[in-house]
């Protein structure tokens, strides 16, 4: 489809798109600015001077809660969810390439996992642990709750990857005498690697930001989103924005690192490809 000239509709749509991006990022930018509010400043503009007061406040004030601990727990949980999501959904993706009994049911169970409201998962797992007499904790019940959200996403992405995967590469490897394991290790996995990095990013960030599924499953120690939620109900100073800015910057850093990793992977391969 080649148009020689951009019409009026292009500029209208471009303006709409620009407004949409502003809508997406504008509010976040506002709290980034407001988190540098002076010590006497409030939750809204105008800025009452510029300071790092609220960031310092965040690390000092114990009344705010266990910010450091919840941050560490969220990261540990996110990493565990990331690894499990990549491994489990990749394995399941391999399984679904062949026909097996119950594949239809498993697929619909995975889809159901996406559409069941989060609070039901939270309530259900909480009740289950309660009845079994187990103590819910972020590394057991919350981990399971997060996986019900990240695994279906991982599985769908892996499906999409395999649908675009050319099986001729595998056949070639097999014809050249590679064992099934060698085929996976040296042919399939390297081809899938960039997409698996994407699955990992999904797993980590979805878990790191998950609130509803953690509500009844985190046990006695909060994860970061629970901590932030607690703050929204009883903190009325810009320290809330400081925490918001920090976690947003952290999220952006994680996303940036993943994207950088992808770019590095690609250029590394291109270089190696050129050398061969």
């Amino acid at each position: 489809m080649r148009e020689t000239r951009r019409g009026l509709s292009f500029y209208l749509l471009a303006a709409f798109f620009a407004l949409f991006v502003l809508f997406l990022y504008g509010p976040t930018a506002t709290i980034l600015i407001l988190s540098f509010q002076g010590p006497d400043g409030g939750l809204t503009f105008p800025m009452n001077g510029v300071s790092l007061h609220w960031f310092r406040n965040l690390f000092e004030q114990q009344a705010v809660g266990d910010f450091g601990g919840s941050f560490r727990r969220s990261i540990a949980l996110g990493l565990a969810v990331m690894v499990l999501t990549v491994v489990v959904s990749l394995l399941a993706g391999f399984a679904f390439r062949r026909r097996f009994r119950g594949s239809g049911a498993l697929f619909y169970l995975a889809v159901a996992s996406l559409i069941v409201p989060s609070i039901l998962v939270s309530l259900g797992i909480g009740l289950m642990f309660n009845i079994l007499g187990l103590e819910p904790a972020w590394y057991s019940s919350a981990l399971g709750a997060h996986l019900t959200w990240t695994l279906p996403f991982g599985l769908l992405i892996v499906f999409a990857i395999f649908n675009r995967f050319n099986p001729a590469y595998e056949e070639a490897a097999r014809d050249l005498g590679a064992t099934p394991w060698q085929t996976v290790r040296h042919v399939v996995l390297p081809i899938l690697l960039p997409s698996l990095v994407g699955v990992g990013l999904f797993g980590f960030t979805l878990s790191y930001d998950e609130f509803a599924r953690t509500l009844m499953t985190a046990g006695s120690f909060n994860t970061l989103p629970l901590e932030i939620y607690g703050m929204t109900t009883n903190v009325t100073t810009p320290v809330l924005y400081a925490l918001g800015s920090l976690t947003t910057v952290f999220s952006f850093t994680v996303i940036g690192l993943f994207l950088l990793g992808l770019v590095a992977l690609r250029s590394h391969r291109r270089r190696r490809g050129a050398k061969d």
Partner: protein
Amino acid sequence: MTVTAETSRSPAPAVARRAKRSRLLPRVAPYLQAAPLTVTLLLFLLVPILTIVAVSFWDYDSVRIYPDFVLTNYVELLTSPVTWKTYLNTLKYAALAWAATLGIGFTVAYFLAFHIRSTTWQMVLFLLCTIPFWTSNIIRMISWIPFLGRNGLLNSGLISAGIIEHPLEFLLFSDFAVVLAFVHLYTLFMVVPIFNSMMRIDRSLVEAARDGGASGAQILWNVILPLTKPGIAIGSIFVVTLVMGDFITVRLMSGGQSASIGLMIANEISLLQYPAAAANATVLLAVVLIMVAAMLRVVDIRKEL
């Protein structure tokens, strides 16, 4: 198939044994590979939901819950006018959020898919839309406060522009704020599947329509829209189920002035009325599943990946 060829060529016993094993392995392999996913979903999705259904028939007092088989939880839930009002309110949120996210999502996806010509730019702009999805929802909600508040940017802007004299009160802590937050959080769930559907449309169809004399609007309505339906259906399923089960957006953005079913369940949980919450959750699940089944009539998801 290569396995059988191998065995017929070299019938040595060791090779035959290996071949036998490697014929068994492919048959068992899918089950082993699917096992971790199956176990996780059974343990943390199916069993918990069955637990909810079971507990919804239990009895409770202010201290604890008792195994029993009573229908009082359902009777109390379904005969209370509050429930019906709350369902109506939740459906209203779902309808408004759905319409807004569909309109915005379709337009954005259409712009990206049909008006951006270089694939690199397409990917860059697409990423730009998806990055906020990977940040905290709660923070994204909070970030509306300085914008919409009584002394927020919007009100002070409108006042200094002379458009209004007194700050608009309906901006924050209102239904407007709730729907705005839903649109802010969930439009991406529309953009991605619709964009995906649009990218699979054969461009020669569009060209053929143009050669046949169709106007831009006709192409959009008669060619692109029908072919984008599967994406629209998937996006709609996401948005509707997310809004139907939501409680945190409604609590934060309405300032406690509005209710949703999710919020009702969350309140019952915090009062430790687990059987009541479970009955409420069971009904909600049934409602959501019916809505999804209706939307699935439009699309076969397995074909859309």
